[in-house]
């Protein structure tokens, strides 16, 4: 068990290191950060000063070590477009993305599990058809386009909901649906397939023979045993949402780190781009780690298996 924990942690650290290494190479080799940061009237002396200040005149290995040191202490460098430390800019925009991810997650869990359960409890009826049809749609449809269609319907034509921006709860509705679409479909499908697996197990048959009420059988016995992989999926999707809300934030002009990445990339603000990427990787890796470890505790077979999962 301890080996499992250590190996997973080591894997996570390796991943974060790999991300920093790749980012370091990409940003140092391509583009000249000095020219970007200096105003047009800068003199040769200004250029030299800035170079020395940013340690860009030192050999590459030294630069790399100081970079790693900075990152480990939470210093992602100076964002030239915001004229603030990159870390501050990121921290200021994180809450918006967290809010969006939570909204989308709540939507996905509620609708996804409901759809999955309904299709299992009412097989071969129109309910099942519609639920699985929605699951197919959620997975296959271009979610950003669906978001735009929702805006067209609810904001432009019906004038019921705001079309963009963060604000009250009403602002959260359409973006959550858009971001949560894919996860809803995935959760619905998984719930359905897990419930079907569990309901065919021996202990369910025994419970029925015992004469238990169907609702207790389904909820207390079947559902509880089915949920572990579903919870894992929920965790993974949450991480995905935190890191990948870029497109949704663009559609709804949501002030989160997704849109921040796009802005930073277009402005060639490499400190900010690196900072966001490392930050998001860190969250993603951390979340996956927690999920893996929790799964290992709940289902010890995972931890004891020799083969990598």
């Amino acid at each position, binding site marked *: 068990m301890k080996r499992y924990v250590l190996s997973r942690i080591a894997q996570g650290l390796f991943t974060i290191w790999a991300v920093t290494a790749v980012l370091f190479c990409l940003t140092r080799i391509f583009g000249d950060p000095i020219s970007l940061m200096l105003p047009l009237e800068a003199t040769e002396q200004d250029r030299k000063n800035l170079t020395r200040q940013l340690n860009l005149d030192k050999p590459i290995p030294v630069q790399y070590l100081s970079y790693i040191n900075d990152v480990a202490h939470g210093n992602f460098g100076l964002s030239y477009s915001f004229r603030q430390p990159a870390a501050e800019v990121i921290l200021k925009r994180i809450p918006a993305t967290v809010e969006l991810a939570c909204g989308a997650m709540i939507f996905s869990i509620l609708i996804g599990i409901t759809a999955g359960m309904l299709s299992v409890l009412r097989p071969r009826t129109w309910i099942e058809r*519609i639920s699985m049809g929605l699951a197919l749609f959620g997975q296959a449809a271009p979610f950003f386009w669906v978001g735009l269609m929702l805006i067209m319907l609810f904001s432009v034509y019906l004038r019921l909901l705001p079309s963009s921006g963060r604000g009250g709860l009403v602002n959260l509705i359409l973006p959550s649906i858009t971001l949560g679409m894919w996860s809803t479909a995935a959760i619905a499908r998984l719930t359905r397939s897990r419930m079907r697996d569990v309901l065919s197990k021996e202990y369910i048959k025994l419970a029925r023979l015992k004469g238990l009420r169907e609702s207790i059988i389904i909820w207390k016995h079947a559902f509880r045993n089915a949920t572990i992989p579903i919870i894992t999926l929920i965790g993974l999707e949450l991480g995905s949402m935190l890191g990948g809300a870029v497109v949704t934030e663009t559609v709804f002009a949501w002030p989160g780190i997704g849109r921040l990445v796009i802005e930073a990339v277009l402005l060639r603000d490499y400190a900010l781009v690196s900072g966001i990427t490392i930050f998001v990787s860190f969250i993603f890796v951390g979340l996956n780690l927690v999920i893996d470890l929790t799964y290992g505790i709940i289902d010890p077979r995972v931890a004891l298996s020799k083969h990598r999962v």
Partner: protein
Amino acid sequence: MTLIRKLGEWSKPIRGKDYPTIPFLILLVFVVTGILAPLLVLHSPTQVSLGKMLKPPFFQKGGDLKYPLGTDQLGRDIFSRIILGARVSMIVAITAILLAGTVGVAVGLFAGYIGRPADDILMRLTDAQLSVPMILLAIVVIGIFSPSLLNVVVVIGITSWPRYARLARSEAINVKQEDFVVYAKVAGASPLRIMWKHILPNLLPSIIVLVTLDIPRVILFESALSFLGLGVPPPTPSWGGMIAEGRSYLARAWWLTVMPGIYLLLISLSANLSGDWLRDKLDPSLQM
């Protein structure tokens, strides 16, 4: 009720045939359109014609049958642009998947057959890459190297190869324990020959299934990148780019965003249904 049942059945066997006819037909049209694109356009998709801008589709008032799906803000025919966009989507999807598949399967096959320590190293790399959200990785890389068709293909290839690697590896581990592999080893076959001639062919069914399930994902990924402005650069039409351009006209000219999206939706649904059918046919145990 009957309508719902009918709609639900469009993906199922039709009249005794074993396969989902309509999705296949749609995909066939997609491929043919992609290949023959320049011959099928009605007007030049890049020709700006300000006198004809924002014409609605032919069934709406003010519409013209010559521009069946309407025109955009620069007077370009939407139908023709959609057709060329199909070509872009197709090229990107095929090339990116070929790239990702080749690299991924090679890595996975090698790792699975050779075993430790190469297996450990390669799998750590694979896991590391899977731990970064794909769209973020794509944005950063394209942002640094600036958008172009080649870059989009490469980036999608880079973000997609780990899945193939993982699949190839787990299948390779299974296959390498089969009798015929052992016999080949005993007979003195080199590892390369065993991997290429004995193991790889047995991997193909699963890989093919993964490819068919991956196609819609890649098409949507490319359109999302184009939507963000990081895909194929203008004036080349791409569905994502068209949707992005149409955003400002959502209230006055809905067809700019709706039309490309409908095609995207149709192709994606058809590809998904076909992929599901193929998976059920070839290997229903594949939980993908």
